[in-house]
């Protein structure tokens, strides 16, 4: 069951990353050229997914939109991991100390700000844009990784090989980097996949309300916002970008669950 999920998830993920990469060199139609004569065409031979209200090819827009979504979510996960993991390791290495306390209370504080609110504040200060969406989602990811890293590191600190390293005279930070971090890799890959999918959803939501990537950069959320007033005339305009989000997120979730079971059977939770 979970192996099927892993394969299905990997296929979906590859499909959309493939489309995003392909869009760098080739798309079926130029997405900046407007062809008003061909506007709002339903799916057909010339345009497999139809055209939008400016006559742009929806398949091409979805391919370029995949690039925006993936880039935003990927960088946001990178920020979360890059800052969160070292903080979590540091907190675990200084367990019970003031540094641990400050880091963990700081995490609690960030947790109290839903990512949407962070995005709202950043937008109020700096204006809307893809970079601000990345920062908002990235900040939200920091405590997720910090807590995960701290929790897992704490249990590793009690293990014999860590004790051996301490006896050998290695410092706490060096042990964190050389012995704890490699043992967290699987866990981080799994959580990274899950946060990646949450990032795609968050990016779509932010760009839907106009807080994400600004035109002319296509994004799935923006396409949905554009389609909303025309939904009764051209439902295909709303259908396909939404399906793209759904399938990408579904694929990443299935892959995350499958990877968890495959990489580390000890972590297996049939429930999730």
């Amino acid at each position, binding site marked *: 069951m979970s192996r099927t999920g892993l394969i299905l998830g990997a296929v979906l993920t590859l499909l959309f990353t493939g489309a995003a990469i392909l869009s760098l060199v080739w798309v079926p139609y130029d997405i900046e050229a407007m062809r008003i004569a061909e506007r709002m065409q339903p799916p057909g031979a010339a345009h497999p997914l139809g055209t939008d209200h400016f006559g742009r090819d929806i398949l091409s827009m979805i391919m370029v939109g995949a690039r925006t979504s993936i880039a935003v979510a990927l960088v946001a996960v990178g920020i979360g991991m890059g800052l969160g993991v070292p903080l979590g390791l540091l907190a675990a290495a200084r367990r019970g100390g003031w540094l641990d306390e400050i880091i963990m209370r700081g995490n*609690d504080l960030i947790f109290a*700000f839903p990512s949407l609110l962070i995005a709202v504040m950043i937008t109020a200060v700096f204006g809307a844009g893809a970079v601000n969406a990345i920062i908002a989602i990235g900040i939200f990811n920091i405590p997720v990784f910090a807590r995960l890293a701290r929790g897992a590191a704490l249990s590793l600190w009690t293990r014999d090989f860590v004790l051996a390293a301490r006896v050998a005279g290695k410092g706490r930070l060096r042990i964190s980097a050389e012995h704890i971090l490699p043992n967290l890799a699987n866990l981080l890959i799994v959580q990274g996949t899950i946060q990646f999918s949450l990032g795609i*959803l968050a990016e779509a939501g932010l760009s839907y*309300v106009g807080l994400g990537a600004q035109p002319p950069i296509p994004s799935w959320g923006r396409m949905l916002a554009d389609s909303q007033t025309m939904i*009764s005339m051209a439902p295909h305009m709303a259908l396909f970008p*939404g399906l793209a989000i759904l*399938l990408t997120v579904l694929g990443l979730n299935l892959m995350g669950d499958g990877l968890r079971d495959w990489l580390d059977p000890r972590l297996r939770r049939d429930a999730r």
Partner: protein
Amino acid sequence: MLQYGARRAMSLMVSLLVASLVIFFALEIVPGDPAAYMLGINAEPDTLAALRAELGLDRAAPLRYLDWIGGMMQGDFGISHTYRTPVADMIAERLKVSLPLALYALGLSTLIAFPAGIWAAQRRGSAVDLGVMGVTQLGVAIPNFWFAMLMVLVFAINLRWFSAGGFAGWEAGIGAGLKSLTLPAVALALPQASILTRVMRSALLETLGEDYIRTARAKGLTRGQALRGHALRNAMIPVLTIIGLQFSFLLAGAIIIENVFFLPGLGRLVFQAISARDLIVVESVVMLLVFAVIVVNFAVDMAYAWVDPRLRGQR
């Protein structure tokens, strides 16, 4: 219990204080002067200075912070720069939409998740279980605003059961008000219900493996009786945590869903305020939502400690 409560209350206060500092000073660095924005580019320097004085903008930032916090504690959130009306009144007006919406969605989510999670746990590994897990996998992955748009297409435009947007107002009667919140609440509830179903199922499966369940079964209880009589109560802790977390997500998540349905809630207020540079409104709404999150988390912590005395010793 009292001592634990006092310690948690202290950390609640500190969190609120730090959060308010972060919000206030983050919005302090906004480029542009609200007074200049209100008066336009042709404003006379005298008028500008007068307005700045009237709004209190000529005072130092720490003083304005103290005014803001002090005012909030007395229910005075300041005066909106664009509408010249008290922010507290504007927020109260919008809360009449946003709060019932979040509660409605939370109710739906719980009503769906409890039976679905119990059902799946009871028939673990069966077709029912697989079906429930499959549907929740989709429910977690679906963007709720897209689901909302599809519901508008089907139930409002094609079937005409609901209106496509707007809010009837509570003056039109509770029924009419609830009706206009139904599609938004369903859209908000769907992903939350999916998460809660999964948590419910996994918590139940975990407790079903405990010794006391085996004892209960050995006594002659059926699997279903053991589940309802013994497992359910013990599975409530993770479920309560998620319900607590979800309430705050629902309040904030409503910002996007309100946009789909053109509901006059907090979300639309925030967006209007951002585009009008009405920062005091943005500040106050964000602070209110963060306050709600922190207080709900505190309440959940206290509820645990009350349910499970072992937790009182821990941080």
